[in-house]
């Protein structure tokens, strides 16, 4: 059971909230404190909320294909906002169309995300990764 605080949201002009809702339900079930911005969340809103609640991680969902247009710059904004080293995940149908996953992942890692997830990722996987990454930050084992 984790006690970390997470900020979640669907970025940009994107209204796909079903996947994120399901993920949030599972994260809460696993003990995380989840602060959800819902759909149509701007990068600034993510940063503001994360600062406000001293979040341990930000989970960005993007399904509508505009990930390449909306997701760059969030890492920079986090740093400007004083969220040095905060865990940043992004997941969903990140680009337009069916593209090789390695390419897509590479593009988003280069934007500064710690982990990049394709659509269809199970909550179980996310909880596992988060638990590991949070422990690693604290220098403990999960």
């Amino acid at each position, binding site marked *: 059971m984790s006690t970390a605080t997470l900020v979640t949201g*669907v970025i*940009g*002009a*994107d*209204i796909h*909230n*079903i*996947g994120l*809702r*399901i993920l949030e*339900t*599972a994260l809460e079930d696993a003990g995380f404190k989840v602060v959800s911005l*819902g*759909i*149509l969340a701007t990068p600034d809103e993510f940063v503001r909320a994360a600062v406000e609640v001293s979040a341990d991680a930000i989970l960005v969902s993007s399904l*509508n*294909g*505009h990930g*390449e*247009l909306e997701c760059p710059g969030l890492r920079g904004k986090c740093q400007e906002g004083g969220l040095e080293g905060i865990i940043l995940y992004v997941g969903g*149908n990140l*680009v*337009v*169309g*069916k*593209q090789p996953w390695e390419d897509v992942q590479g593009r988003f890692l280069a934007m500064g995300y710690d982990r990049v997830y394709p*659509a*269809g990722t199970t909550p179980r996987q996310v909880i596992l990764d988060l638990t590991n990454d949070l422990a690693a930050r604290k220098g403990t084992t999960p």
Partner: protein
Amino acid sequence: MARWDEDRFLRVRREVLSQWPSGARVDLNESAAYHRAMPEARRVPWKLAWAQEHGQTLVQPRAGVAGLEQHIALLRILEQAGADFLPTTVDSYTRERRYADAQRGLEQSLVERRSLLNGFPAVNHGVDGCRRVVESVNMPLFVRTAAPDCRLTHEVAVAGGFTACTAGPIVFSLGYAKDYPVQNAIEAWQYTYRMVGWYAERGVDLNVEHYLAISTMVPHAIALACAILDSLIAAAQGVRDITVGFGQQCHLAQDAAALRVCARLCRRYLDAAGLSGVRLSTLMTQWMGGFPPDEGQAFAVICLGAVAAYLGGATDMVTKSAQEAAGIPTPEANAAGVSASKMVLRMLADQKLAPIPEIAREEAILEAEVTAIVDRALELGDGDATLAAVRGIEAGIIDVPFSPHRANANKALPARDWRGAVRLLRPGQVPIPKEIQEYHQAELARRLEHSPSRLPWELLLEDVNAISRGMLLERSG
């Protein structure tokens, strides 16, 4: 919900057109003349009427890319595959009125020679761009957008020769917005409807399509109640050609039943409101929830959608592709979704498998549910559909599972029963008649028998994921 007088419409219009430079090009009279010069067969309302007369189900895919030439090439492939209507799905920036971002996305797309936008930025391409599209193909076109405020997009697209648009303040508030007040969305849509009415007065018929796109586990009764109220609001502003529909839930009897009742019920409420002279047609979009990544399985969902459309006698069906789960499909994959769907419809067209008692049973249930919801909402709204919408949502009478909108109650909890039919496990404030709610419970109990320990939301998660995992009901073991 009185009809806007022309002054009000024209006053608001100035502001709408000023949102982006291409607005200046829209000239209502010139557009009406352009429409009147079009051959009837290339107009959506004409073709819908033709299909109803001939007992045909028409088919249209969704599609849109950033570049004008690329978009035209895409539509030609779909036309080739047999699409009866052609779509122009508008990108998300345009939906959110972020035209500058759409412009940036369009330019970057042209540079990178691939679409970075998830649709066609109709406002940026302007009236002449839209006319290029319309004149490059032979089939009637829909502009497919969805947001609480689509006024400029519709001004431009209709002036550009499109003869139908997706619409609805309720369906688009609950489906595509977070905190845009429903009341404001209604006003924005009254504008669009009034514009459609303006054209209608000048002999130019345009079709308006109402369905709740967010339909993962949304009971048909709730979706149809929304579409009917939207239709009342539309007709009040002079819209004369309306399509009502919903998204496939993959239970054949329920889907067919919904198609069979939806226009009849809508007509009943239009009549009661004294709104006559509206042509109604029906629509089902293929499964709007998560698709299976396996392409064979995806074709199964697509073909079962076509079977349901046949059984229900849909006028129009919106198709999906086997690449749905992966992302915007290639033109070829999109075309294969069209050709599979058309083939099922052509093969079944004459078979006359009806009557099927099970469908009649679901019809009766659905009719009672929809009537209860709409009646109660209208009661709250003192007979005015706009107030009925606002107050109905507030009161949770209209409650859409998974809606991202803050005004939505989120108390209604659906689940599939032992036969895969979508029922309400907890109705919340949705006024389902007592005997019917008892029936839902009994049917659900038969499912829960096999998984007695499960919590309602666990059940819901299971149901949300089932189809994308290759089944309708998750099996224990």
